[in-house]
């Protein structure tokens, strides 16, 4: 049962990758000719241009180019960077770790803030605490992340000089970008936790739990929270995409050597293979994360069996 479900999901993943690859393949070619910028300011001869175009394989018809890209994908060969000649797989492998670390750090910060804020907002509904929590959420939702990043750099790196402003040379470097990423996400997440908790707290089984004479915190953290976790988990899975999107910008702000910056630099240089490889890789990560989230439902709620539909 579970196996056929996973097979179905892998098939699904392949479809997603094909669609994404088509989109990125054609859209990057709309940005212009890479050969033109590779010569810089010089006036190359037509011969030189033709030679370089042929070397890069860009003289082939589009469908052949796409076919080669897909064939490479099947053998985990994403080609080589137009710029550096380094295999794209190598470039991605170098950058995966920092990006994952940043996404993970952001998620941890988001959860550490959103769970307590959301829970307290819900149980202290319509009090000053709830009001504060809701204002916090709204601020989190409304702030642009690059602006927040710059402000944090200004305060903690430039003025107070507590933390480094950019780069990636250790744990200290992770703090500011993680907080930037996590704060933004925690706004939406806290709102969701609050509303899920409010819904659950109205359920009959919460009254049952209260009638048993167990402590209030056991009722809230065990009986209510576990049930409120389901919609929250779905949301976290979906937000992982936004989180990866967020890292692209945050990496830029904090000069973080991740995949996001790799892709941005590659776009600026019209480095087709790197852009294609990077984007398809991020899409794959999204698919895998969502699969893990779906599988985790059955751990949270025994009524849901993976593969039996929800």
């Amino acid at each position, binding site marked *: 049962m579970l196996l056929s479900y996973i097979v179905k999901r892998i098939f699904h993943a392949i479809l997603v990758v094909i669609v994404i690859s088509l989109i990125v393949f054609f859209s990057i070619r709309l940005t212009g000719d890479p050969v033109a910028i590779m010569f810089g300011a010089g006036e190359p001869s037509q011969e030189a241009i033709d030679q370089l175009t042929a070397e890069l394989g860009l003289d082939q018809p589009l469908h052949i180019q796409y076919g080669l890209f897909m064939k490479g994908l099947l053998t985990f060969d994403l080609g080589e960077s137009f710029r550096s000649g380094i295999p794209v797989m190598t470039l991605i492998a170098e950058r995966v770790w920092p990006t994952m670390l940043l996404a993970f750090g952001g998620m941890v910060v988001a959860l550490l803030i959103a769970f307590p804020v959301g829970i307290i907002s819900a149980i202290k509904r319509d009090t000053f605490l709830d009001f504060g929590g809701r204002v916090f959420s709204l601020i989190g939702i409304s702030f642009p992340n690059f602006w927040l990043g710059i402000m944090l750099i200004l305060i903690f790196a430039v003025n107070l000089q507590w933390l480094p402003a950019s780069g990636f040379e250790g744990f200290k470097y992770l703090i500011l970008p993680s907080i930037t990423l996590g704060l933004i996400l925690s706004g939406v997440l806290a709102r969701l936790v609050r509303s899920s908790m409010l819904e659950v707290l109205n359920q*009959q089984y919460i009254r*049952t739990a*209260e009638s*048993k*004479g167990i402590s*209030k915190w056991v009722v809230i953290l065990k009986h209510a929270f*576990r049930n409120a976790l389901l919609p929250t988990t779905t949301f976290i899975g979906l937000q992982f995409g936004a989180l990866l999107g967020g890292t692209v910008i945050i990496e830029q702000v904090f000069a973080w050597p991740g995949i996001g910056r790799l892709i941005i630099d590659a776009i600026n240089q019209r480095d087709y293979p790197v852009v294609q490889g990077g984007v398809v890789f991020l899409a794959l990560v999204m698919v895998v994360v969502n699969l893990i989230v779906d599988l985790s439902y059955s751990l949270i709620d025994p009524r849901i069996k993976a593969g039996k539909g929800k």
Partner: protein
Amino acid sequence: MTESVLQVKELKLGISNGKHKIPIVNGVSFNLNKGETLGIVGESGCGKSLTSLALMGLLPPGIEWQDGDIKITEQSMKGVSHRVWRSVRGQKVAMIFQEPMSSLNPVFTIGNQIVEMIQSHNKMPKEEAKQHAIHMLKTLGIPRAEAVFNEYPHQLSGGMRQRVMIAMALSCNPDILIADEPTTALDVTIQAQILELMKDLQQKMDMSIILITHDLGVVAEMCDRVIVMYAGEIVEQSTVVELFDNPKHPYTKGLLASLPKIEERKEYLSSIKGVVPTAGNMPGGCRFAPRCTARHEKCDVKPVLRNYNDQSMVQCWLYSDN
């Protein structure tokens, strides 16, 4: 004299609207004796569920305890701390609810939910608590109790879930069991089984039951005494035989008249005209007067609940000498 396990005196519960207190339950007094089953009947919104929640200290947000007292096994509960309430819940007073489908937490096993309750009131090792839980499940006639212990609520039928609820409620040997419409959501055949079980366990455990229902059939089956509530007040209180043989209050008469009888052929069942007035708009005199067929000039003044005979009390001018 019989031992009293619960005394409710002039209990007022309601909402507060700025300066004005609007009572929803308006001065309710009654006693519950050891081993007795007391029925509370009335239409929805008459305050019967709210009264029962007050007995657990579980009033919904916004509803306040305005006046009066509740004594549970001689202990006054007025203004006591959360901690005291917690020790009362489950141990002295336990409660089962109308919807067995939604009364158990869907994400924890049956065993987990019962053991949690046992361990919160009794210091005992997990294994012992587990054995006790399984014993309770067996007492409630649940087949394959050991397996059910590890199952989730959604794997059981409605009747089985209500048995689980009762097993859990009785697991700490409470003095009082409050059953709020315990069989309303169940099939008729299952209803009878559950009621029979409750009666049986009541005798074994020497427990008092408060049965909240709008089903007079269930009252006749189960109760020793009955309280009839209307618009937040007790309008009649009597032994079950007296209530059915000789109902006094026009509202009680109306309730009984609305029951279909097997020996009668009627095209329409009779009903009580009008609706229950809302909490803020109670008539100044008798609250039932606007719907009453026996209304007269005295009814503009509020009647009090007084003894009619040694078996019953009624709050109506028809039975008052002055």
